[in-house]
């Protein structure tokens, strides 16, 4: 767990999963379906595409709404979560997933203006 927290984790959406295989990422999406095992659930990003998240331990309670998942992208394009965080919907401004998606695309379109890697290591 400690390992992943030291590493820069770029924010991505579904279309960027394939470019980040075997790398640590941060994925924000809406929980779609929780599988009966409780160890896997699917999330959708701001563009409407789906991705699968796999946990080490099964979920203890129902998961819904928007979550932020930090983990490694597997060879198959699923996210092996090390940790996740649910964004509260009852407080504050509702999270605009489409707008977030636009921001994520922007970050990847202009990496020279968003040098996260450098900041993390320095």
């Amino acid at each position, binding site marked *: 767990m400690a390992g992943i927290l030291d590493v820069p984790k770029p924010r991505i959406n579904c279309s960027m999963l394939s470019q980040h295989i075997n790398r640590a990422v941060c994925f924000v999406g809406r929980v779609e379906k929780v599988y009966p095992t409780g160890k896997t659930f699917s999330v959708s990003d701001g563009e409407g595409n789906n991705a699968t998240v796999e946990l080490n331990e099964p979920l203890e309670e129902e998961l819904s709404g928007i979550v932020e998942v930090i983990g490694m992208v597997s060879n198959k394009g699923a996210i092996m979560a090390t940790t996740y965080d649910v964004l509260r919907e009852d407080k504050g*401004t509702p999270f*605009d997933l489409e*707008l977030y998606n*636009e921001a994520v695309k*922007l970050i990847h379109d202009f990496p020279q203006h968003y040098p996260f890697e450098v900041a993390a290591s320095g």
Partner: protein
Amino acid sequence: MSVRLTEGAVEALFKGVEVNNPMLQLLSIRQIGAPSASPRFRLMMSDGQHSLSSVILATQLNYLIEQNLLVPNCVCLLKKIIINTLADGRHVVIVMDLEILQSAEETGGKIGNPTPCSADGKNSSPKKVSSSTSVSASPPSAAVPGTSYSSSNTAFSASGGRGRGFTGKAPVNASPMKASPMKASPMKASPMKASPMKASPMKASPMKASPMKTSPMKASPMKASPMKASPMKANSASPAKAMSIANLNPYQSKWTIRARVTNKSNIRTWSNSRGEGKLFSFEIVDESGEIKITAFNNEVDKFFSLVEQGKVYYISKATLKAANKQYTTLKHEYEMTLHANSSIVPCDDIQGVPTLNCDFVPIAELENRDKDAIIDLIGVCKSAEDVSRITTKSSREVSKRELSLIDTTGKVVTVTLWGDEAEKFDSSGQPVVAIKGARLSDFGGRSLSALFSSTVMVNPDIPEAFRLRAWYDKEGYALDSQSLTETRSSVSGSRMNWKMLSDVKSESMGHGEKADYFSCIATVVYIRKENCLYQACPSADCNKKVIDQQNGLYRCEKCNRDFPNFKYRLLLSANLADFGDNQWVTCFQETAEVLLGHSAEALGQLRDTDEDAFDEVFQKATFRTHIFKNRAKLETYNDECRVKVTVLEVLPVNHREYSRRLLSNIHKLAS
């Protein structure tokens, strides 16, 4: 060289069959009509076999006779003719264009031995004449005067019909014709109409250029009048032919139109230096187009209750004049004014008259339209505010109501209704609302306002309404759509002039004659605690600083009074910063209270009692980000000129809107 006459042509023409470029010999010329103004010439033409005397020369060709170019026995090629059918079935040929192929001298005498064509004399061997094509579309010969004619010629070779040919004075021309046999049998306009005229949109514009009516044509409106008279009185048969709205022009005085009222306004009174009066206007539509009609003063009384929106009427005898584009959104060249002799009669035969002619714009496209454009809109009324009363600049009280309309594009826009319409509107059940002739404004981004001339229809009986209803019931109601009008906070919309703090210096804001207003997002980095409060005059609306008389009284110079008390007022000097620059600003009472989160009185108390708590208020207010609406102005204070910035309003940051704005700015910069 001798020319061959087109045999069989006369017989064909007599029967009303079109002949293409027949060559005929002129046998005789007779002048008809009143001796005043332009004469009309009747020709007897022969094809060697038969002769036809019901041939009329179009007046623009009169000069041929007057200059003795066209004389009996010469051979002519009829390049363009129109055949009119009289009510009794007889045909008249109008020669619009002809070319003289052989002069009378060359021809010698009469060719052949033509027998006059009469009603029963049709038994001579009918020679087949190629008459498949209608009036030849040959371009007018050079002889034709006036560009207006030539332009109209092409228009009517395509559109045939209402024989235009003159540049002359139509009404005058009409009279001689009237005297002629035409009069005997009032022309029926139907064949004219049946011909290519219908094929093309009768946009009367080329026609308009030269008021034209050949006699038979004129006779038809003549006919219309006796016809017209009957429905007025008899109220039974409809006039055989109503004119189309597109053809209306000031040069025709007798016409009848049959149309539906689409847009009726309320009675409006005015009072200006020239007097006062009242008016109401309405728009009518028929298959060919729309036109606006206005009634003033007496006519208002006469017609206002008679004219109902959505009903079809026969209208005749009104004054036509050039449309004042300022007051109408219709595309017709002219508009009508009713006068004492105008007549409006309800019509039962509504076949063919279209209902509302609306050109609805999808809400999502409103952003692309210009501000102040007049458009039609249809949408489902998702919600409506209550009626509110507003006092306008002219001190009039008006009711207003705002509705939110959504359509299949998923976008929402706010529409403002005024006056009676605002009060009458019933928003229950999410009705489909259609508005015709609303003005698009950039208030709050994009919003619509109903004008005096707009028509608001609730649940109208048109296909778009049904489609919208079906869509809304299925999916629309659940859509959390994006409104083009962001009315919640008056902050958003194109009124906001977003700037960065560095722009204040780089753009020399405030240096002009007028103050510069702008909005920015900035963080408070420092607020001066000292001298943030002052003692002000306690009388309402007077905020002048009072002088402590030291005897328990406080003197206000402006009110010229002493008071035993005062009220605390805030006057903050704060430093704002964004990524680029800092700016010292002044915040008065209202904005200061928002920034600090406490009222001036409370702070005044706190300062005297609990100093730590007082400090903490300021600490908490620092490093908070807000939206600031400011005013920058160059001010002179003791020989020193400085740009002073005052905060007019402090608002919380709307992150979503801010993000969108940043995204769009980035995209703009990137492209």
